[in-house]
């Protein structure tokens, strides 16, 4: 049985955090490094989903300053580093069709984009209550207390 602490110290990583972590030239880079350091020092478990990875892979190419060939090399290098982070796991939602309706409920209730509602769905399906992010898209959800922003 999962203890309360096991459930509490679980944090989902948003794609912007990963992109800034991989990009040393970003003004958010040090903050991204500090956030991941803090999470691991405080014994949190870190979670990604295939949806986060799809966004990461796409943006790593889309916003690259080098040729596509070089960008793919960068992606391979950066991702191979990320997966060496301790306590990092990949999660997904259960594949029961009926449960996917929750995504639409979240879109309606919190006025989220489909993909953001899907992130929320994956988090809640896996009892992940914290999100590490740099953007404000989830502010309404944070206000509701459904999940919390890791700060």
């Amino acid at each position: 049985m999962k203890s309360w602490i096991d459930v509490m110290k679980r944090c989902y990583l948003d794609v912007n955090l990963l992109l800034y972590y991989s990009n040393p030239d970003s003004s958010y880079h040090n903050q991204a490094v500090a956030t991941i350091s803090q999470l691991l020092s405080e014994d949190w478990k870190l979670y990604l989903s295939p949806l986060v990875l799809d966004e990461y892979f796409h943006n790593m190419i889309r916003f690259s300053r080098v040729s596509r060939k070089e960008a793919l090399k960068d992606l391979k290098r950066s991702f191979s580093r990320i997966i060496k982070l301790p306590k990092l796991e990949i999660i997904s939602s259960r594949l029961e069709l009926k449960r996917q309706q929750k995504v639409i409920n979240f879109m309606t209730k919190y006025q989220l984009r489909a993909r953001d509602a899907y992130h929320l769905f994956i988090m809640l399906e896996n009892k992940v209550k914290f999100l590490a992010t740099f953007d404000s898209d989830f502010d309404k959800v944070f206000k509701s207390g459904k999940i919390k922003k890791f700060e």
Partner: protein
Amino acid sequence: MSQTVQAFQLGSSTVVTVPKGLGIKPGQKLKVEKSGQKLVYKPQKMDKDEIHKLVEKLAGGARLKKDLTPEEINEELDRRYEEMLP
């Protein structure tokens, strides 16, 4: 979980492999203790400095647009979704 593994010689060390399912990552430090006939491997906790050094070491690797904002990332993903629409 119980599995049989075979030790082998590597230089002057004897290497015991750990099945992947046990979740031990390459480079992870383990404390080993002998307790009677048993060998007990315990993951060694890193201190704050070690964690920070590791996180810094694993950062970077990309050459992205310098001033990329969270909003731009969202706009790009929105654009990608819109392109998929008929």
